[in-house]
């Protein structure tokens, strides 16, 4: 007689009830007591049907429970042949949804941890062959490239990025106008956003941003003493006093789109809740997203193993705050949890960690196309140019190599449907190879996914209507940070 065994899953509890997250389907089921007991028993070790019948007191419902668990592949027969996961590479030409335009690689700040200028930089931004500013012509060619590569999509998205994006405001301004006009001519729409450190937000720039409905993400680390620790000018003075009034001005004028803060967490500043409070309540941001700094492990600002635990604890508190707000249908701006909840609701199971090299590409100041903005200008991560189009062979080779099926370390991890190995750039910085899974934060990813599952489970019990907002089929914009 064959025996039953649990298959890949992650059990969690929410609102006092047991749930299961199935891997790799990413389906979430609520379990009744019997199903939960059976699944837990089988998670310890395989059991034959006789053993199960004996331990569940000849429960007449046992067979039906086993059948349902087997039907959704939460359990399976021990000797049943494995169904191999298909390695499906998306068909080219895959439409481009987001183009990140590095309009300059120069910056007026000298943030110690910067991946573009700091010790872990990939491209020689100071004395490399790339021009320091993107020319108007290259920007126009990029727009043509974007419109051509967007395929049958009606809507294209351009994100302006840097360096400090606003150092090249003249080209940005002309590019917006040009892209609008060209898109209108061929019956498409273009949506714009930009990332800035806010130091150069002058009234006329704010006016332009608001008039053109440009989405804004501001890199800021928190209150003065936190911000000024790393986000400093070249002479070492902090930037808080310069940026805070300018950000308030922008928030007051530009109200049509939610403006988000993007916080880099480092070893020295982990007061997540306090940073969140300051940026939302005292400055007025609609939402705040946190990301641990990308760096080699030996840097002073690198987050150590214990730092990730601390970060998880704080994220958890903020996530449960988000939960209570959402149950009461109040807005809460902790964007990390909202993004994950959306992916959990849809049941996303990723073959690639992000859209880089697929629906998202970065363009360097000279028009070279790279995986994403973080690799812009790197020859080793080049996927064509805006003039010659996407190098399909290079793109295909990249996708073949980075598919989750190749990441052996990930094959035993229940969090892989969401993580899929993590950021290519983080991997490149840590391990020197984009294909390497980011093993240094596995525990953190699993911990955070578990927190989000609990929040999701609670929401499904206490305010299922809240989750309906994610039923929209519109693909959310890829985050650029």
């Amino acid at each position, binding site marked *: 007689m064959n025996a039953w065994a649990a298959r890949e899953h992650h059990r969690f509890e929410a609102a006092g009830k047991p*749930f299961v997250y*199935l891997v790799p*389907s*990413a*389906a*979430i*089921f*609520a*379990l*009744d007591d*019997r*199903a939960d007991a059976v699944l837990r028993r089988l998670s310890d070790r395989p059991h034959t049907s006789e053993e199960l019948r004996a331990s569940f007191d000849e429960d007449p*419902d046992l067979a*039906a*429970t086993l059948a*349902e*668990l087997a*039907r*959704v*592949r*939460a359990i399976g027969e021990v000797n049943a042949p494995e169904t191999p996961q298909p390695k499906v590479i998306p068909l080219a030409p895959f439409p481009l949804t987001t183009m990140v335009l590095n309009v300059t690689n120069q910056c007026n700040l000298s943030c110690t941890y910067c991946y573009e200028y700091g010790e872990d930089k990939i491209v020689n931004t100071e004395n490399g062959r790339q021009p320091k500013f993107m020319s108007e012509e290259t920007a126009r060619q990029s727009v043509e490239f974007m419109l051509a590569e967007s395929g049958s999509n009606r809507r294209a998205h351009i994100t302006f990025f840097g360096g400090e994006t606003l150092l090249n405001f003249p080209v940005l301004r002309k590019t917006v106008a040009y892209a609008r006009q060209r898109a209108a001519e061929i019956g498409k729409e273009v949506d714009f956003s930009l990332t800035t450190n806010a130091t150069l937000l002058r009234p006329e720039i704010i006016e332009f941003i608001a008039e053109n409905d440009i989405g804004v993400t501001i890199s800021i680390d928190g209150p003065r003493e936190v911000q000024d620790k790393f986000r400093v000018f070249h002479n070492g003075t902090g930037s808080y006093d310069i940026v805070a009034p300018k950000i308030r001005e922008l928030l007051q004028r530009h109200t049509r789109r939610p403006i988000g803060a993007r916080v880099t967490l480092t070893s020295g500043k982990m007061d997540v809740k306090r940073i969140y409070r300051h940026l939302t309540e005292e400055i007025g941001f609609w939402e705040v997203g946190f990301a641990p700094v990308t760096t080699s492990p030996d840097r002073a600002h690198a987050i150590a193993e214990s730092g990730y635990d601390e970060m998880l604890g704080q994220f958890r508190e903020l996530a449960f705050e988000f939960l209570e707000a959402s149950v009461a249908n109040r807005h809460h701006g902790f964007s990390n949890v909202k993004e994950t909840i959306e992916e*959990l*609701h*849809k*049941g996303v*199971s990723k073959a690639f960690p992000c859209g880089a090299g697929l629906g998202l590409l970065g363009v360097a100041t000279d028009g070279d196309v790279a995986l994403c903005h973080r690799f812009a200008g790197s020859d080793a991560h080049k996927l064509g140019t805006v003039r010659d189009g996407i190098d399909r062979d290079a793109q295909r080779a990249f996708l073949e190599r980075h598919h989750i099926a190749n990441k052996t370390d990930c094959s035993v991890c229940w969090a892989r449907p969401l993580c899929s190995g993590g950021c290519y750039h983080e991997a490149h910085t840590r391990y020197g190879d984009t294909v390497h899974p980011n093993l240094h934060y596995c525990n953190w990813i699993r911990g955070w996914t578990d927190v989000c599952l609990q929040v*999701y*489970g609670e929401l*499904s019990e206490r305010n299922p209507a809240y989750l309906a907002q994610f*039923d929209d089929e519109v693909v959310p914009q890829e985050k650029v940070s």
Partner: protein
Amino acid sequence: MNHLKPINRKAARVEQATEPPPAAGDVVALQRTGIPQQAHFPVGCSLVFSPGWEADRTGGTAGLCQPVERDLFDCHIGCYWPAQVPDQLNHAPDWTAKCAAAQKDWRKIDLIFP
């Protein structure tokens, strides 16, 4: 399902995809139920309307009623039906070498003995 309740959208799809067929429902030819199967493309069966059957792939009828010998080739690639034909990859790579056009040259096809 009585013991498991789908919560997210993927779970609802899993439940739908694994719905057992109704016990006493109609059975329709070529019916498929349950988890979607890998796509199977018979090359040259009436399922895909290639010339020689009801209509060609553009809906035309001009080139229909091709000789029965044509089936030999149309079927040996994808279906092995109705004619079980030699293994062209290993055992008999040249069995159709002298047969340039099936309609005309079918008599020249080699006889293959295992």
